[in-house]
């Protein structure tokens, strides 16, 4: 493992941090969350111009091809500002998946548009009864002449409301939970037979439920091997989980610092809260959890191309979930009543951490995955 940032990534980190700090105050975030789109198109274009949307896109298609370590750096810095722009779903779910596994025609038509910010792509892997397991796919794809007919439902599709395309997993063969027999289809969000139900989540972001009723899809829109989509899905979810962990590290660092500042200034019983040993020791527990979450996230990111990818990612997600829930809950507790008011940013950082713990597998799910090695 190399825990030292390269010079390029250090500069990248500075520039994302600066943009978030200068142009993304909490008040703007509140406005964006309340708006219909939920994020800013102008800012999205700016991300594109700065090359942040192209970290997983080859230079051939207008990307910056910076790689996973840069994706991690950007995700962490965006987390620091609780940025609502659909970076993770578009860059990891969309660009990463298409760059790695789609054929040339799909790549040529979509990757330049992702990198320049004109198109967004998301992934629909979960179903109402699948919980976190990507192998549980009941949505069916059956051949009807030259085309496939898709029927079923997908759930918790991140940023479905703004996605121009969605990649979804469908069962082309086998039982509902078999690894073999899952195929990935790229579908235009406006396809006939698609019924979207968009909603807000408690962390201010957007997701969707998706109903498919005889949606007609060409075999050309299959990404990766027919029936062999599970391994792709598994890898992309790991890549997305690593990026989500990085975002969480950004969120919890800021929340930790806010709490530390508060303890140094808030006085009760004639002294600062930070002078009480019981609170000092709790802050040390939170700091240790944060430091560990950072180390584990870096290690997971650097293991994405290795044989131990699955266990490293699950390990990181558990550490991040636990650290996020500790830091989130304790930050609210130590701020006191002010933190349960909607006006204070701290509470919103806490809510994002809670949401992250429940996304792409909670700790119990990932622990089950981690202990498969024994």
């Amino acid at each position, binding site marked *: 493992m190399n825990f030292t940032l390269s010079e390029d990534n250090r500069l990248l980190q500075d520039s994302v941090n600066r943009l978030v700090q200068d142009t993304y105050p909490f008040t703007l975030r509140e406005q964006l969350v309340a708006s219909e789109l939920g994020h800013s198109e102008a800012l999205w274009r700016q991300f594109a111009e700065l090359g942040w949307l192209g970290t997983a896109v080859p230079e051939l298609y207008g990307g910056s091809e910076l790689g996973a370590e840069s994706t991690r750096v950007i995700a962490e810095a965006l987390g620091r500002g609780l940025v609502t722009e659909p970076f993770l779903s578009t860059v990891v779910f969309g660009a990463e998946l298409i760059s790695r596994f789609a054929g040339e025609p799909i790549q040529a038509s979509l990757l330049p548009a992702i990198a320049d910010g004109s198109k967004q792509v998301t992934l629909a892997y979960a179903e109402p009864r699948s919980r976190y397991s990507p192998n549980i796919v009941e949505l069916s794809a059956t051949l009807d002449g030259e085309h496939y007919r898709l029927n079923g439902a997908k759930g918790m599709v991140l940023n479905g409301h703004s996605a121009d395309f969605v990649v979804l997993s469908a069962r082309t063969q086998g039982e509902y939970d078999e690894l073999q027999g899952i195929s990935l289809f790229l579908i235009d969000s406006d396809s006939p037979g698609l019924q979207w139900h968009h909603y807000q989540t408690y962390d201010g972001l957007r997701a969707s439920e998706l109903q498919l009723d005889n949606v007609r899809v060409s075999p050309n829109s299959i990404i990766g091997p027919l029936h062999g989509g599970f391994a792709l899905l598994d890898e992309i979810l790991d890549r997305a989980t690593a990026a989500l962990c990085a975002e969480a590290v950004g969120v919890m660092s800021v929340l930790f610092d806010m709490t530390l500042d508060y303890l140094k200034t808030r006085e009760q019983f004639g002294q600062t809260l930070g002078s009480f040993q019981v609170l000092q020791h709790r802050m040390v*527990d939170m700091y240790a959890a944060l430091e560990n979450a950072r180390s584990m996230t870096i290690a997971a990111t650097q293991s994405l191309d290795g044989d131990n990818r699955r266990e490293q990612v699950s390990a990181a997600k558990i550490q991040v979930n636990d650290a996020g829930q500790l830091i989130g809950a304790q930050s609210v507790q130590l701020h006191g009543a002010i933190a349960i008011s909607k006006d204070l940013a701290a509470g919103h950082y806490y809510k994002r951490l809670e949401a992250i713990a429940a996304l792409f597998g909670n700790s119990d799910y990932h622990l*089950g995955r981690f202990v498969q090695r024994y």
Partner: protein
Amino acid sequence: MNPEKNNDISVFRQQVKVFIVDNLPADIRRTVQEGRLVSPQETVRWQQILYRQGWVAPNWPVAHGGVDWSPSERAVFEEECAAGFCPPLNPMGLSMLGPLLIAQGSEAQKARYLPKILRSEETWCQGYSEPGSGSDLASLQTRAVREGDDYVVNGSKIWTSGAQSADHIFCLVRTDPEAKKQRGISLLLIPMTTAGISVRPIIGLNEMHFFNQVLFDDVRVPVLNRVGEENTGWSLAKAILGSERLHLSRTGENRALLMELLEVARQEYSDGQRLIDEDWFRRKIGRAELRLMALEYTKQRYLQKVEAGQTVGPEISLLKLQGSELIQHFDELLLEAVGHYGLPYDPGWMLGPRSEPSIGGGYAGTISANRFRHKGYTIAGGSSEVQKGIVAKQVLGL
């Protein structure tokens, strides 16, 4: 990511592994693997093997007989030694006093003591804690009064590991009772054979003799045996404690315990199946391994910061804090794994080779003894509460 550097370290790791397999005597390996007490003679034998290889003092400068290893390489060496069932080196001379003498000792002190530490011809113990000074070490009261070219020392030290067999003690004493408590302390080097020193054994919860009380009754120590200036002993001691804490993260020792736990869980049965196949126990092992991974990666990250020229200071305390607590957690899991067969205990199992299998499988008999010994890990070297205080004040600024 810098694959070249990564590559180097894995080549180095392999070299260390091979060396250990080829050179660690089988009887010593067995003592460590079975969790029995390593005798001072076994420690010395292994240290002398390392000395001949030039590896006995990884954190000494090359000019004094050390090794030209980076902090990461040193950490890999420690990890492989622990994973390969090498006995821990006696840290008193090699890790604690040696580096201090190199930095602060007189030329005469270096010439007199360093070679014998390297060759394991003399052993040391550490006289820090006192009956009235535990966590508040700076309140220590053992007095050293100047009389001509000597100090006359009176008082007592406690929890002195290995005092029963050590040749010398490095000892914090109060030389100025009027000064602020940290400013009136000096560090003396005292032969244990000096008249007026007596050693009272303290038997541990596991019936083993590790600790002692060392009593000083008008003990005369030449002024030449003082390290550094008079009344500067506190800052010298703190420097030792800082480097000790990195070692006290115990990553290698923790990994060896994980391996042992997995092995035990493969042999134990629960509800008619192997314990390792019980989901509830697998998850406990998984959680513990996660803590170990987090500790290892955070330690690596801090070491790489040092190599990149950045400073890593008091946050090292986080590693000591977590590493010592994790050892105790692995002990709890090991005891849980053997169930009620963790209870039978005969101190003889800790001392000699297992002439007869202990009750409840070959491995159960020493688990409790090590568990009770390891209870000291969160107390010695600055208790967990002291470490948290250090991080709160010096890292978080509270």
